[in-house]
């Protein structure tokens, strides 16, 4: 696609349920990032993929959070046993990777509401 695509756009879930958020990066982009934006806050780094491997998972807030990337393309962020504090906008970004000067392009995010 022309840009980074995220689905769903909005998700309301009950506390305790599992959710999956999807990110489809720009074709050919090897680097993929997940960020979380809580209400009124800046973006918080969660995880970074280079290809299918995740060399930096340091931002995942707990073991309820996991992510995978398959085929060097689509990534899924899974939150198990959701809690109210997980409510936030989850943003995905991709870049060509390689030299650090490459620009990261963002999707429009998934707004997750845990009720």
């Amino acid at each position, binding site marked *: 696609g022309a840009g980074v695509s995220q689905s769903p756009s909005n998700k309301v879930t009950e506390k305790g349920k599992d959710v999956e958020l999807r990110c489809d990066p720009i074709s050919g982009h090897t*680097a993929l*990032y997940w*960020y979380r934006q809580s209400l009124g*806050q*800046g*973006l*918080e*780094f969660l995880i*970074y993929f*280079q290809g299918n491997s995740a*060399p*930096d998972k340091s*931002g995942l807030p707990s073991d309820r959070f996991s992510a995978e990337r398959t085929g060097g393309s689509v990534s899924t962020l899974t939150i198990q046993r959701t809690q109210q504090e997980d409510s936030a*906008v989850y*943003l995905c*970004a991709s*870049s060509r*990777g390689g030299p*650090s*000067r*490459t*620009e*990261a392009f*963002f*999707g*429009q*995010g998934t*707004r997750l509401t845990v009720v």
Partner: protein
Amino acid sequence: AQTVTQSQPEMSVQEAETVTLSCTYDTSESDYYLFWYKQPPSRQMILVIRQEAYKQQNATENRFSVNFQKAAKSFSLKISDSQLGDAAMYFCAYRSASGNQGGKLIFGQGTELSVKP
């Protein structure tokens, strides 16, 4: 660890006037990149301007320019001839040039800019 601080939660400017958004950062690295991103209500982050730390010249993109003070670790954004479409949340961000950091961005808390007609 690197940090980015935006001390102005909200700013307001009159249409056609100039406004400056402040950003400070903390790092022990000498080589890095700084960015300003715009986030309209659509939520999509849009890159406004980028500065490489090794360049002394301040970056400029049309009506947007930065004042990069490396020693002071300051990186402010100036918007000239403000337009209604400039109203958005603005984020300052830092990225290490070190390959072992993978290119992740560290963001400030954001500044909500409103433009008055």
